[in-house]
């Protein structure tokens, strides 16, 4: 009996499909692995943060870098955000002759959403990128290995101060954003749009509640941890020289921005 031992004929589309599936699988595997690695790193950071030695100076340095360094940028962003939002909402409310609602509208939007999201984005751009680059450079130049050689836990020495600083500083930046945003909105609404100052503040007082402000601060704290953790993780695991550091920084920025927006939605749903 004659047996046909020739392999079956392969088509080009089959190879393409296989390659596509492999790529999707690799991306999925990579993302899941990253998520898992990040969670494990977070646990390590948490564990190291409650164990001595407590490096207060490192912590303060990071607070200065993240908080003090970003304060002006955040205030500026907040002021202009408040101004543009007041301007647009005043134009919209003029249609209904309800410009008295400009104050509460801007206040609620800023305190609940704009302040935490924009502050986190500013910190991501300014401090997160710097953190990722710094740690990535340390990694590719084997400075991290040198720390380990000197029996210094690199997670405790490098990551814990950054993450704790992000956790503590971001809510304060959010508060500054709130203040600057309301000041900008007041300037535009009262100064340019001619809305009565008494009406602006009275209506804002009536509608704005402490839970609205607290919601923004809470979101800020979460974003602070996420931004610093993602940036540190990407930098800490960078490889491939200067190019690899640049790639890690880019990935960190994208991941931080996406995380901020996704978490903003989820927290908004959870808190209400």
């Amino acid at each position, binding site marked *: 009996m004659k047996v046909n031992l020739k392999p079956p004929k392969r088509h080009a589309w089959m190879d393409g499909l296989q390659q596509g599936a492999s790529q999707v699988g690799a991306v999925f595997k990579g993302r899941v692995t990253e998520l898992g690695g990040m969670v494990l790193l977070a646990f390590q950071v948490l564990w190291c943060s409650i164990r001595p030695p407590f490096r207060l100076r490192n912590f*303060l340095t990071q607070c*200065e870098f993240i*908080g003090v360094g970003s304060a002006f940028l955040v205030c500026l962003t907040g002021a202009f955000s408040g101004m543009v939002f007041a301007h647009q909402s005043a134009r919209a409310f003029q249609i209904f002759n309800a410009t008295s609602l400009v104050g509460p509208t801007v206040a609620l939007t800023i305190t609940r959403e704009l302040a935490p999201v924009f502050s986190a984005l500013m910190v991501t751009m300014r401090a997160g990128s710097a953190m990722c680059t710094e740690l990535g450079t340390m990694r590719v130049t084997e400075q991290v290995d040198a720390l380990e050689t000197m029996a210094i836990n690199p997670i405790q020495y490098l990551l814990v101060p950054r993450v704790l600083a992000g956790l503590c500083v971001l809510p304060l930046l959010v508060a500054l954003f*709130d203040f600057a945003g309301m000041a900008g909105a007041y300037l535009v609404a009262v100064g340019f749009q001619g809305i009565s100052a008494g009406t602006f503040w009275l209506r*804002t007082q*009536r509608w*704005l509640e402490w839970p609205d402000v607290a919601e923004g601060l809470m979101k800020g704290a979460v974003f602070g941890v996420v931004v610093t953790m993602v940036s540190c993780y990407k930098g800490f695991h960078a490889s491939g020289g200067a190019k690899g550091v640049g790639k890690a920084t880019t990935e960190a920025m994208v991941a931080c921005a996406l995380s901020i927006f996704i978490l903003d939605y989820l927290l908004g749903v959870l808190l209400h």
Partner: protein
Amino acid sequence: MSDAEKAVKQWMTPFKVGLFVLVATGVLIAFWNFIGQGRFGKDETLLVHAYFQDASGLASQTRVQAAGIAIGEVVDVRLENGRALVLLRLAKKAQSRKDAVLRKRSESILGDFVLDILPGSPQAPLLEDGDEILRVLDAEGIEQIFSSLTKITDDISQVTAALRESLSGAQGTSSLTEIVDNMVKISRSLERMMEDTSGKLEHILSNVDVVSQSLSRIALSEESDIKQIVKNIEGVTRDMRSVMATLNALLSPTQGQESEGVLGVKNSIQKLENSLANIEELTRKVKEGEGTVGKLLADERLGQRLSETLEDIADFTQRLTSLNLEVDVRSEYLFRQGQAKNTFGLRLIPRPDKYYRIELIDDPRGSTSVSYIQQNPPNAGSPAVQKQTVTTDKLKISAEFAKRYSLLTLRFGIIESSGGIGIDLGVPIKFPYSSKWIENALLLRVDAFHFSAENLDYPRLRASLRFSPLEHVYLQVGMDDILNRPNRDLTTNKYLGGRDFFVGGGIYFTDEDLKSLFTLVPTP
């Protein structure tokens, strides 16, 4: 790096961070104060409530204001018994009273509402925590106002359109001219009429004046005549008096000369007086308790007995009317016995939940009694004590008391001349061919009796299933003496005891005539 630079660098970082923290914390505190100013704290406010028919537009934090100044806010709005319960927090310093009036008012066309409160009269007590504001005015919503305005505008449009149609064009102009002309004519006619009738009116008024003057003159000039009329009236009354005196004289005796009519009247009066005296005597005796009627009315014991007797009679009649009597006649054929068992029963039903059953039973098994005969001195070859079982054919009696619990009936008493208990489970059925439910159409009946019968190993247990396809008629099947083995006398072949199947039937009916005989049976 010099030492001074090192020292500056050492404190610069903490200083910057501290300054940053201070500023941000200050901002937060400022926010806290700013928000807190618009709130009404619990210490300086009181919580009251009001019910609204329509709370649309009201929500938590809706402002409550007096004289345009915010003095409180709505805390909560919820539905309660079909009305909206609105919880309010009012500032104590506003000093709102219990007769305060709460009014819902539309604040803007966006549907914002505000509650206006009129604090109330100074005489009324102050509102306290938990009080209700009773005077509530549900304002019309902005939608209703717009709806009303739209209707009014439509009406005005229709009127103006009709006017425009009727007045437009040459015809309209001529109509308008005609209307004006007519109005001019009417006013002229009125003017003329006033001119013509003014003289007549003056004449009428002068006539009235003359009449009144004449009346006055008559009253003055004819004074003597009026006095005469008064005198005449006096004379008439005097005459009336004399007539009455004459009548009196006629009715009273004067020197034995009395007319026949007067005598008749007198006799009648005398008889009437006698009758009245008799009645008086009678009432006196009754009052003093003399005689039968007097004793009846005056003796309290007798009265009480009479009252009790009447109550007994009422109770008796009530029992008589409520008691139901059911006559039951049935016959069952016992297969092993080969004979029929007949029963005549009466069921006295004073209340639906209980009854008494009395039965006379002709049981072919008979009534068995055991006696022991002791021979003294004993005969040789025979036992000293001999057992003698005597079975007699006589009627047995059942007398049971039954209590009913829904479908279940428990019975106890005498069953077939011995103590026993029974349980019935009756199911009412409404057959397609019948218009009403038949009570106990399917009846499972279990009796246990003869607990200490010497000729039986176990008590006599009987179970039967009764089926009533029609009212007053039933069929029955069952087993008697379930627990004991069949026992037949070998010499006479008479069936003495033991389980036996039976089948039979019967009729039952209520008898109104018989039941009066049983009304005196006491009911517990």
